[in-house]
């Protein structure tokens, strides 16, 4: 059929032509936000994990009634031990000012850090050239200065499990959205088939093959899905942008800002072609199945 020529079946006048783009837009919006949300969190997790995987935090808790001079001595001994430990690249004792900086977002600016029984913290960066046995290091530290090393393994395990759940949730949402889109397109196509039964019969009698008729339906469904999914994708991008703008104002240090803002864009750009293809094949399959039952 020549491009731009009126379709043999007047599908553009069907009720489905009015409601289907909006439904596809809504479904695309949900899918885009789900995928984008998951991708943004996964990227954050990677960033956090990268920051923690080559780092160990060593803490030295003050003993009851212990003088500052004593605890400073334990800190210096620990630092010396760590600097000589295989695989350690750098060792930095966190100052009280730095600790205050970390705690301020949660405890406020009026914090009197001296009134809190806070442990001394040492940030240890690993070279990554060789594995550091944290258990052995802990045993060594406990035997000499009573310090305790934490490689954040528990936190990272929990984060990994949490992200795994989020991934499955995102997959489930996308699967539900695709299923809903397939059902809606199939229903709309069946409605159009019933509405244009006489025209389809005439085309058959003139000698039209099922494929010729199906192409008209699939082109129609494709066009509607394209319009709807582009609308949904634009709305999702706008929402993601607003979320990233509000997240950038949070003092969480989580970095939910510009560095992850491109992920929703990638996710949403992929959805219109996918929605269009899903609509095309659903309409085609529905029509061919129905036509096989006709004479």
């Amino acid at each position: 059929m020549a491009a731009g020529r009126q379709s043999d079946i007047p599908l553009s006048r069907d009720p489905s032509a009015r409601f289907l783009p909006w439904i596809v837009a809504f479904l695309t919006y949900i899918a885009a936000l789900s995928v984008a949300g998951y991708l943004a969190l996964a990227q954050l997790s990677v960033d956090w994990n990268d920051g923690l995987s080559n780092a160990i935090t060593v803490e030295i808790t003050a003993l009851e009634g212990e003088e500052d001079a004593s605890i400073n001595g334990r800190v210096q001994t620990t630092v010396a031990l760590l600097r000589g430990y295989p695989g350690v690249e750098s060792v930095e004792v966190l100052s009280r000012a730095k600790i205050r900086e970390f705690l301020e977002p949660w405890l406020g600016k009026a914090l009197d850090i001296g009134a809190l029984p806070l442990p001394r913290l040492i940030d240890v960066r690993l070279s990554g050239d060789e594995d550091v046995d944290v258990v052995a290091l802990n045993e060594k530290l406990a035997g000499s200065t009573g310090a305790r090393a934490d490689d954040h393994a528990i936190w990272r395990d929990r984060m990994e499990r949490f992200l795994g759940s989020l991934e499955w949730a995102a997959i489930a949402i996308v699967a539900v959205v695709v299923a809903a889109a397939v059902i809606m397109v199939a229903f709309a196509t069946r409605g159009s088939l019933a509405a244009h039964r006489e025209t389809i019969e005439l085309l058959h009698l003139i000698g039209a093959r099922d494929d010729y008729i199906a192409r008209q339906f699939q082109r129609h469904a494709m066009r509607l899905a394209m319009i709807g999914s582009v609308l949904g994708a634009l709305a999702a991008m706008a929402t993601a942008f607003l979320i990233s703008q509000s997240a950038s104002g949070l003092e969480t240090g989580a970095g939910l800002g510009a560095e992850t803002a491109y992920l929703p864009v990638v996710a949403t750009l992929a959805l219109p072609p996918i929605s269009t293809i899903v609509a095309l094949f659903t309409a085609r399959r529905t029509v061919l199945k129905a036509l096989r039952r006709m004479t």
Partner: protein
Amino acid sequence: MIRFENVGMRYGTGPEVLRDVTFELKAGAFHFLVGASGAGKSTLLKLMYLAHRPTRGLINIFDRNLASIPREELPDIRQRIGVVYQDFRLLNHLSAFDNVALPLRVNGAREDVVQKHVGELLGWVGLADHINALPPTLSGGQKQRVAIARAVISRPSLLLADEPTGNVDDTIAVRLLYLFEELNRMGTTVVIATHNKSLVDRFKHPVMRLGDGQVRTEEDEADWGAGLRRDAEASFGTKGDAPTVPPREL
């Protein structure tokens, strides 16, 4: 060309509309199909243009047994059959041009071929000035000519027309019959179901008479003419007055 053997047809669980219909049309034949209203003329034509399958019996079309033709091959057969429907069955959202172009386009004809042939044919049936008109804006006679143009555009081997002159005046009716005769001379087998006695009388072609669910051709009865006239008197009513204009070339 087409052969019916003991064909029976009923809709659902209703009575048989056609029973034990047996006849054969040779390639290049031209027949009128007459019979009283409700006799089954449209049903017989529907069987011939493959809109229905018979309840029983054998239909051979283009030397192929209809029962053994797989569904995927029906379009090839149908593309060789042109049909003028009693109610035109034009697509109201398409222009006269696009309606006539349908058989060519479903057959995958190139657009330049479509443009050339459809334009010529619409001119031939006197609708050159209505190429872009939508069917609802056309008169009954103009719609009928669009329907006829659509039926003949792809030079069918078999042309079936159900009351093709029912909505046109006598002048147009005679012109259309000349068009059908012209196609017949070019090799198309033509069957025209009609109530128009004057046309049947005027154009001396064999008549298939449908009554009591059965078809009788002139070979079936020696006095078919007398029978036809008897039957026609009963079935034509006042509708089939002779055309008042002399025949003329299209």
